[in-house]
């Protein structure tokens, strides 16, 4: 089995490691870099729990190899809240709307919503719900997740997003 040295910027910090070619980005992030907020619900690309941002795009880290992310900037759920602990507005919306129960699917849902609705980006409710249809949650019946998406798509939420930008 060939091994490779990979370097990524994870949540703003440089991380270098040695991996076998077959190691997934998810396993690398969890086992080597210590970002256990990356959850593995299926390891075959359906549940979405493992979603992270690679260069700003939502990616299923169970379907990407660590070697493919060499040199990339990666954001996991640990890297979303501000340094002072202030939650990202996606996290806050999910908290306010009781969008989680066990919290296992949550990191992936947060990251998909953040990819569409973070840093001045503004997705419509339909866009958010379409993206969320690729996530499985066994606990909530999706009620709070949908309400959070609706909150984020509201015009006022846009202002806040822009406000955060400036």
């Amino acid at each position, binding site marked *: 089995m060939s091994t490779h040295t990979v370097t990524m910027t994870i949540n703003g910090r440089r991380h270098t490691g040695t991996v*076998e070619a*077959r*190691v997934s980005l998810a396993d690398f992030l*969890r*086992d080597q870099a210590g*970002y*256990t*907020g*990356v*959850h*593995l*619900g*299926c*390891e*075959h690309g*359906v*549940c979405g*729990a493992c979603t992270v941002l690679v260069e700003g795009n939502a990616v299923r880290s169970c379907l990407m190899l660590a070697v493919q992310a060499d040199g990339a900037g990666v954001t*996991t*759920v*640990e890297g*979303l*809240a501000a340094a002072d602990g202030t*939650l990202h507005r996606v*996290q806050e919306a*999910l*908290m*306010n709307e*009781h969008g*989680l*129960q*066990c*919290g*296992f*699917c*949550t*990191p992936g849902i*947060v990251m998909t919503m953040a990819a569409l609705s973070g840093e001045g980006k503004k997705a419509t409710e339909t866009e958010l*719900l379409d993206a*969320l*249809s*690729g*996530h*499985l*949650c*066994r*606990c*909530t*019946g*999706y*009620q*709070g*997740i*949908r309400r959070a998406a609706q909150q984020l798509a509201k015009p006022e939420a846009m202002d806040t997003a822009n406000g955060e930008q400036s």
Partner: protein
Amino acid sequence: MSAPNASTGNTERTAVADTAQNGATRVAGMGSGRYIGKRAPRKEDPRLLTGRGQFVDDISLPGMLHVAFTRSPIARGAILSVNTEVARDVTGVHAIYTQQDLAVFNADMISFYLVSPDIKTTPLADGRVAYVGEPVALVIADNRHIAEDAASLVEVEYAEEDPVVTIGDARSGPTVHPGRDDNISVQMGEEELDEELADKLDSAPHLVTQKVVHQRISQSPMETRGVVATREGAQELTLYITCQSPHLVARWVSLALGVPQTAIRVIAKDVGGGFGLKNHPWKEETAVILATMLFDRPLKWIEDRYENLTASCQAREQEMVLQVAFDNDGKLLASHGDYSVNNGAFPQLSECNIAVHMFVWAAYKMPAYGFLTRGWYTNTPGYAAYRGPWGMESLIRETALDVAARRIGIDPIEIRRRNLVTLREQPAESVMGIPLEDVTPAECLEKLLEKFDVGQFRAEQASLRKEKRYLGLGIATYIEPTGAAGAITTMTGELAQVRIEPTGKVTATMSTHSQGHGTATTMAQIFADRLGVPYEDVSVFEGDSSRGGFSPGAAGSRQGVIAGGAAIMAADLLVSKVKTLAAHVLEADPGTVTIEDAMVRIEGSPEKSRSLAEIANIAYGEPDRLPAGFESGLEAQYRYQPPPMTFSSAANACVVEVDVDTGFVTILRWISSEDCGTAINPAVVEGQISGGLAQAIGMVLMEEVGFDARGNPVAATYKDYHLPAISDVPDFEFVHASTPSQSVGGMRGVGEGGAIIGVPTLVNAIADALSPFGEVPVELPLTPTRLLSVIEGRDLGAKAGSETTAVMASQPGAAPVDATPETPVAPPQATAEDATEAVRIDGDWNMALATPMGAQEMTGHFETSGETLSGYLASAEGQMDFTGTVAGNKLQFDLKVVKPMKITLKYNLEVNGDKISGKCKMGIMGSVKVTGQRAT
């Protein structure tokens, strides 16, 4: 306490008082301090939203190695040889174990009731395999990749045999477990229909025979099973395991391994859903624990989704035929149920689901009911619980009522109104003897109808039908036993331990456990409310067997009800302590002391107000200032034993449209009207119901664990096993009726209800939509293919197990024919008389009663004198004397018992040589098998 300590206490007090004041300013905006009933944000969320949860796979220990399993590729057969040579040679492999290696521990794979299994159950396969996916060998390696590589290199030679896959196969096929007479794992009720009941059914103006075939379900928590086990020397075992109660796991492991001397600590801080699958360890977890003890290194096993979908215990595969007789007004006259459940090969408990029969008519005015109920062994993964395990009762009853309403020509709402037991009619007793005092399904239904205009819907439905659009309305009502405690060993009360820390903050340890239930939130709300402190000041700890005390955790919709009561009682004890101390220190009357916003005040003397932290500091650090006899500190604990059962009630309505070209179902509206008594946090309550309803939608429309004829699982990924996605689940509307229960705090359980009531609600809506095409057979899931067959009038062919209907239809209530040859019964008279001399009855017998909770062992002592029999039955619970009669080799006697209920046990036994067998009829519960042999 010595002086230096007291002075330290003083310094601290000053600092703490400041903090408390800051705290008070911060919380001032939070409102009145009444937290019960508020949609408080969850305590668990900040951790879980930022990736700081601690799930079992997040645990990594120094020196930890990884486990993978070699699993059986066949459903039934003997293991001829296991060759691990090649696998052992893989670099990074440390050990490979088979059952031979683990057998030294002689682990007893006990059930949820902590009873040994009826069939030999071992962590790894023992000479034979009984389902595809059964673990055969355990590989320990440096990492998961290597462990899996090596597991696939273990060579196992099998002699494959034809498997028994379905309930139908089990009735007629070979025995799954060698040495058993048949594939019945447990049976209750009467094989022969009671004549009086048969008459009532036969002579009724309307007889509806409803059949339901329920598919097998994978509980599918988003976090799969997993365990990290580590042994710290010979005396300590620590387990990180994803479970529903660390306390139950600790108790289970201690009993299963017979290692009471070992300090077992079980930690499960965060758990990604359980739903019944994670009640206690099963084959794989046990194998890993044993391997840890053998190999003496920390081991981790994390199930992957493929294993979870194909080899974990599963749930719900069942069939039932319910006959219901009505008069011309649609009033219930009599009913009979015949139920079967697939237990798989190694079930977590031998289940015949007696609860289905206990509750099927519990909330309805049903004069007569009889049943036969059985569990069947098959060559499939074992049975485990799934949210609302007895939910078949609501599914079959509520769908049968709709069929009856259509046939008799009355409104489905009206048929329920005529038969439900209303609040005014209580107290009442159900046909199965369940006392009803405050169930409110009828009232929930009326409340629901205030929110849904049925007349308007019917008009819309009629006009759309003209456009060939098919809308349907489904209504269902039910009651559910929740918060049960006292009848089953593991279903205990709950413990709350709470203290006001010297800082004035509140910490509590609970026997509860959350797999998403948010008990750290709801319990904190109760403490904040009752203690008069800000919600932010309360921290609740759970998820560690070294904290709190025993409880089964999440099982049977119980935590809000029982632990809620415990939290209230403990908080009240603590409040009275604070009052006593404050009154003493501030020289006031205890009756004038109040606590609000963490401030202790004396009515009429505002100048005497002190922060709770100040009082707490005195309690811990200044013993000289305490009243005489006052226990220092501010701590209290209470284990609450609730009433044996607390009922929740609900009525649900949903509207669907069925596309008659594609067979697809769109859910247009869903209203849940439920009575959960006091809602501690309505957002948590609605979350529980919503999750259950989504699971109900999955059961009705999409989920299915299937097998091919060789017992191979056909749903191996989430591409084949369809969980509902956000696009499949509508917005749920809620109506809360809140009739306080008789439990402390007035709560009623809501954990399982959605998964129970949602199923018939949706099925009824679909059946209503398609009623112009005929009745929809209730064979779940109702896939587009199945619905199109109704719409297009095609017969998809009878499914396995349909022989039940055939028999039932022609001969109501008769027992399905078993192909297994019956044990020859001694022909009447002649043989019996001949036998008289030869029969030896007197003496001691080792006997076992096959109850649904497992085999109950007892010793029987018989003495005969002519036709008179006397003797006693003795078990761990005590000894009971009886007298009865003997005729030839046949014995008859009655025993009156009062626990767990008042019941007369009627024994009918037969002695054949050194064997004794027969039945014990347990009143309305029906008969169970008795077997035994002469004690030597």
